[in-house]
């Protein structure tokens, strides 16, 4: 468990380092540009907010698959990428291309309804696209249920396809090559074996581990591949999205509790067993059982928050460091932040693997609790 905490601490440290660097950058830029005229300082501030907004935008899911954007000579912002289908449920299914939004610049009119893309979310508006706000500057417009094929969905699909063909190929290569994998399977087979021998077997036990293997293998490679995809220039932050980690943790939760043995449930509803007389239980159990029940939910919740926060933090740190290069614009600062960004990238590649490992490991641990079968008297 310490190892997992360490990575969390590492990520936190990264955030602190970034905060420090950002503060340093602000001080430096403040000093450096104090001598210059006001307009330059303003443009600097604009750049800062632009970077901040860009990072915030990047962390969110997007309705079109943009590869990069640039500003041309006529000061027009050009996006390079392709639109994705938008699917809305708003008193009936509405489908249209995300190109209708023009990256949030225009309203999409579908069947007499107007929709506006605002901070990566789709709101229903009037014909001129008014967004109403409450006191805390949250949009109060109606939000149709959004089933769009977003950038994350595309990446999930691509990862799924990749995994399917990769491991189908590995499975087929056994028959072809007399039980020995060929090609890229040679790299992945040891990882499959590692998950079986060092994650599933010791945590779940020899008798029942086979039942959970497909799930463990699937989540491990799914999370790992998506984490790695997040580090590519495509920059899709899929595993840093709370909906994704929630869905994954929910599956772990369901698998744990649907396969729970009698001993597992006894453990929750009668945690002390025969070690305590019934009148003692009468006093303790009103406290203990709610705690145990809460534990059921806290375990997968910690899974979803850990993965989300680690990936989110990694992306924030990396993009902040890259953003610093544009803020410094100096011979000293920019190479420094480039070097840091490079170092953090390397750490992030490790974190990508580590987080996949931790998620799988802890899932296996929870499955191990659920699959437990022992003589209750001699345990604990």
């Amino acid at each position, binding site marked *: 468990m310490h190892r997992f905490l360490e990575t969390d601490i590492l990520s936190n440290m990264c955030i602190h380092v970034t905060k420090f660097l950002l503060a340093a950058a602000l001080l430096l830029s403040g000093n450096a540009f104090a001598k210059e005229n006001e307009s330059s300082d303003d443009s600097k501030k604009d750049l800062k907010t632009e970077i901040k907004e860009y990072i915030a935008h990047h962390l969110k899911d997007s309705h079109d698959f943009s590869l990069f954007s640039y500003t041309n000579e006529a000061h027009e912002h050009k996006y390079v990428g392709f639109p994705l289908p938008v699917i809305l449920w708003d008193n009936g299914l509405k489908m249209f291309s995300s190109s209708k939004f023009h990256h949030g610049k225009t309203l999409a009119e579908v069947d007499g309804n107007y929709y506006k893309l605002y901070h990566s979310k789709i709101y229903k508006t009037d014909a001129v696209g008014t967004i109403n706000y409450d006191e805390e500057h949250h949009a109060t417009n109606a939000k149709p249920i959004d089933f769009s094929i977003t950038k994350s969905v595309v990446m999930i699909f691509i990862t799924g396809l990749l*995994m399917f063909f990769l491991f189908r190929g*590995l499975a087929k290569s056994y028959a072809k090559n007399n039980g020995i994998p060929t090609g890229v399977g040679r790299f992945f087979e040891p990882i499959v074996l590692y998950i079986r021998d060092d994650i599933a077997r010791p945590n779940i036990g020899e008798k029942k581990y086979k039942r959970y293997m497909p799930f463990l293998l699937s989540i491990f490679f799914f999370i790992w591949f998506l984490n790695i995809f997040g580090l590519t220039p495509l920059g899709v932050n899929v595993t840093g999205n*709370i909906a994704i980690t929630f869905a994954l943790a929910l599956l772990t939760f369901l698998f744990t509790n649907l396969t729970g043995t009698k001993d597992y449930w006894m453990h929750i509803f009668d945690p002390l067993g025969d070690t305590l007389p019934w009148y003692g239980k009468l006093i303790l159990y009103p406290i203990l059982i709610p705690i145990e029940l809460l534990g059921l939910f806290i375990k997968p919740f910690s899974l979803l928050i850990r993965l989300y926060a680690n990936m989110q933090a990694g992306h924030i740190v990396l993009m902040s460091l890259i953003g610093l290069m544009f803020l410094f614009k100096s011979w000293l600062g920019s190479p420094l932040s480039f070097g840091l960004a490079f170092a953090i990238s390397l750490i992030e590649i490790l974190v990508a693997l580590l987080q996949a490992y931790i998620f799988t490991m802890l899932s296996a641990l929870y499955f191990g609790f659920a699959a437990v079968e022992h003589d209750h008297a001699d345990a604990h």
Partner: protein
Amino acid sequence: MEKLLEEFSLGLFFWQTLLFGLLLFLLWKFAWKPILSAVNDREEGIKDALAAAEDAKKEMQNVTADSEKLLKEARAEREAMLKEAREIKDKLIADSKDQAKVEGDKMIKQAQAAIESEKKAAVADIKSQVANLSVDIAEKVIKEQLSDKNKQLKLVDDLLGDIKLN
């Protein structure tokens, strides 16, 4: 927490669950099951092969032990046979020596007996010849001596004297 809830997208959750569920099912059926069973088969195969090799090794050791035992037995037998042969030889030699001695002794005895009898015969012969010679000589001497009266008397005296001495 509020930020998390705000960020939560039901659509993405839906697609993730659907696609991941589908992926899980497909991989379960078409990838993980064959991979794990193939790996398992391979491991079983390796285990069996190792066990077979171990058995073969043991058998080999048994065979070697057996052959060594056989060799030892053969060596012992040869040793015993050689010993027996030596004993027989010694006995034979000893026997023949004894026999030869007995035979020799017998022959020597026979020879001695023959010599004895020859000697006796020769002695008897010599005796008779000596007696004859003596008689002849005595005859001649007496004939010569008895030619004279005195000499005859003397002889009688001598003979008488000899008788007395006897």
